[in-house]
Structures are given as structure tokens and as C-alpha cells.
């Protein structure tokens, strides 16, 4: 069969490309080059998810890998370089890129043993295992949505998602508690073209986020993907220097940040009291409840990711407030 052969060629090229990019990104000398290679690696990962018939995952990877990770790494590298040039040159003379030479061979042997072992285990796995797919399929009716991934995320394993939202919040708390790291260099005023681009893209991003949230009930999409797209809109605004006012940064931002987890917890308590089990939705209302949970989760995820990109509050903000 020709199709199968072409598909195999595509897959092997993609797999080898992934390994090569990861290797180059981790081994090359220039940090900026490493970041660009890592962004390209993210693009190929999205294609790999598509080949593995995981469009939901591909959407999340596309939103995060193409938008957030690249922007985060770029800005962090810029700040790092400004610290290194402004900082005390005498302190910064620690040799660059030193390795632990004596143990390197031992490490190489240990890791290749580990890789061989894992590879052997994987090859000996049976080719067909139903996993939990049949269990999900039989209960899909009662979940309130027809996209199995959304059903798992918001209904069957809702407590996982609740805790994930808390983890996001904790990461932000960690960043905030570290305080302002560097006096961020003032962004140059955005060129006119960039201004126009942002004005066109931000509404489109918000619209797409709403679409992904809505479509998530019956097709790939959902709160996490929509939240990431929403965060990208925030990142774009921050990049052209549109920082939110201090008044917005205080209480309103915090309310949006906890809106998702709080709704989840409230829902958990209510279902515990009425149904007697944590996050067990009555099937007739499950669809609406999931939509409510997803909307609040999307807002919180978007706000948290954008706030993470903004980083620690700068000294000037503290002085004003």
C-alpha cells in the first residue's frame, strides 16, 4: 500500500527531526539559537500530536508552543543578557558551559542503559490494548458532552483538573513572591504597524478562544486551549507596552485568577452535599455545569498565564500601590 509507505516516511522524518532538533537545541553554543530551535521543536511536536490522532493535544501545543513558550524564553533571555552586561563583570567571569567531565562517561553509560531498558519494555508492550477508552465510551452519554477528552477533563476526572488549576495559581504565587527580579527595560513605543496588527489580532484571539470553548463540548477544544489563546492576547498587549492600570492589577485581577478554582471548589462542595460524591454531576444538568466550569476555568487560565508572562510586580508598581 503506497499510502502506508508515504505515511511511514512522514512519521520517520518527523520523529528523527524531533530528536535532531532537541539535540541541537540542547547542544549548540548560542543561547538564542537554542531558543529558536526549541520553538521549531514545539512546532514539530504539534505535528506529531496530529499524527497520533490527538487533535486536542495538538491545539494546546499550538497555542502554548507557538505563542507563550517562545515569548517567555525570548524575554527571559533578553533580561538575562541585560543583567550580564549591566552587572559586575568581575563576578560574571565564571567559566561558561563547564561540564562534569569525570562522571560524563559513567552518566552516558547509565543513561543508555536506561534508554535501552525503556525501549525494550515499550517494544514488548502488546500492540492492542483498549485501555480506558471503552469505559469512557460507555459512560459518555452521562457526561453531558460528546468530546471524550472534555468529558474526562471536566467530569470523570474533574478533581485532577481542579488540582491543576491550583498548581497554576501556585506557580503564579511563586513568581509573585520572588518580587521584581530586574527593572524591566522600558519597551520602545510600538511601531504603527505593530499597533495595527495587535488591534486586529486581539479581537480575533478572543473570538477564537470563545469558539474553542464552545466547540470543546463536541469536538477538539476546551478550557485549556481557549485559556492559552486568551493568554496570547494578553501577552501581545503586554509586548506592545499596554500594561494594565495599577487599579486593575490589584483586586480585579486577583478575582479573575481565583474565579476558576473557586467555582470548581464550590461545585465540588455542592455535589458532595447533594449527590454524595465529589464532582458527580447529575447527567441532565452536566452539560450546562461543564460549560460554566469551563468558562470560569478559561478566564482564570488566561489571566494566570498572562500574569506569569508579566512576571514579578515591578518596584514601581509597589511604590504606587
Amino acid at each position, binding site marked *: 500500500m503506497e499510502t502506508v509507505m508515504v505515511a511511514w516516511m512522514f512519521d520517520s522524518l518527523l520523529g528523527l527531526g524531533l530528536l535532531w532538533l532537541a539535540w541541537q537545541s540542547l547542544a549548540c553554543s548560542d543561547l538564542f539559537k537554542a531558543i529558536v530551535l526549541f520553538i521549531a521543536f514545539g512546532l514539530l511536536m504539534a505535528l506529531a500530536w496530529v499524527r497520533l490522532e490527538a487533535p486536542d493535544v495538538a491545539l494546546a501545543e499550538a497555542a502554548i508552543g507557538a505563542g507563550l513558550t517562545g515569548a517567555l524564553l525570548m524575554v527571559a533571555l533578553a533580561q538575562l543578557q541585560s543583567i550580564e552586561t549591566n552587572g559586575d563583570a568581575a563576578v560574571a567571569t565564571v567559566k561558561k558551559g563547564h561540564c562534569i567531565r569525570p562522571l560524563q562517561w559513567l552518566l552516558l553509560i547509565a543513561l543508555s542503559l536506561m534508554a535501552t531498558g525503556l525501549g525494550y519494555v515499550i517494544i514488548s508492550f502488546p500492540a492492542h490494548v483498549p485501555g480506558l477508552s471503552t469505559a469512557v465510551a460507555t459512560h459518555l452519554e452521562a457526561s453531558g458532552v460528546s468530546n471524550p477528552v472534555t468529558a474526562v477533563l471536566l467530569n470523570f476526572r474533574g478533581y485532577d483538573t481542579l488540582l491543576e488549576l491550583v498548581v497554576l495559581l501556585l506557580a503564579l504565587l511563586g513568581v509573585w513572591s520572588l518580587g521584581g527580579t530586574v527593572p524591566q527595560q522600558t519597551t520602545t513605543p510600538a*511601531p504603527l*504597524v*505593530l499597533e*495595527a*496588527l495587535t488591534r*486586529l*489580532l486581539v479581537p*480575533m484571539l478572543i473570538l477564537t478562544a470563545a469558539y474553542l470553548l464552545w466547540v470543546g463540548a463536541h469536538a477538539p477544544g476546551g478550557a485549556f486551549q481557549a485559556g492559552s489563546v486568551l493568554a496570547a492576547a494578553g501577552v501581545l498587549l503586554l509586548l506592545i507596552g499596554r500594561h494594565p492600570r495599577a487599579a486593575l492589577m490589584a483586586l480585579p485581577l486577583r478575582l479573575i485568577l481565583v474565579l476558576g478554582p473557586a467555582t470548581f471548589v464550590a461545585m465540588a462542595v455542592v455535589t458532595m452535599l447533594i449527590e454524595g460524591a465529589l464532582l458527580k454531576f447529575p447527567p441532565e444538568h452536566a452539560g450546562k455545569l461543564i460549560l460554566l466550569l469551563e468558562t470560569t476555568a478559561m478566564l482564570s487560565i488566561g489571566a494566570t498565564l498572562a500574569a506569569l508572562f508579566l512576571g514579578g510586580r515591578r518596584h514601581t508598581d509597589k511604590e504606587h500601590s
Partner: protein
Amino acid sequence: MTLIDYLTVVLLLAGAIFFFAGTVGLLRFPDVYTRLHALTKADNVGLGLMVVALAIQAESWAAVGKLLLIWLLVMLAGASVAHLVARGALRRGIRPWKQ
């Protein structure tokens, strides 16, 4: 294969040629400004041809709309980024290549 299929094949191949040309330009042109030109122009025409080819195969008008939207967005991003990179390069004193 119907007539529509043949048309799709021709358009897709034309699009692929433009993608190929874009890559060759990226590799062969001498400086940032010329590479910008190769990349954005060839790339947007290439994707445009592919979008048209896939649109005539699409199952609904909504799908056609989505395909065209994707193309417009890529063109918008490509054109803006090209402008921003060229502007930034000029301001940083990178001189355009002269034969």
C-alpha cells in the same frame, strides 16, 4: 479522479513550488532584507494556492471560510513581521546588500 481533483493537484503542486522557492530564497539570498522578500512573498502565494486547492475540495462553505481566514491571518502576520524585522534591522545599522 474528476476535473476538480485534477485542478486541486495542479494548484497544490504550484503551491509546493512556491514553498520550495521560499526555502531556496531563505538559504541562498545574501542578507536579511532579500531573505525577507523571498520568504514572505513566496510563502504567502504558496499557502494561498494550497488554500484555494483545498477550498474547492471542502465539504461546506464554513470550511471554505475557515481556510480563507487562515490564509488572511498568515498573510497579515507575515507582512507585519516582515515590516517589523526590516525596520528593526535598518535601525540597528544593518546595511542593505548592494551588488
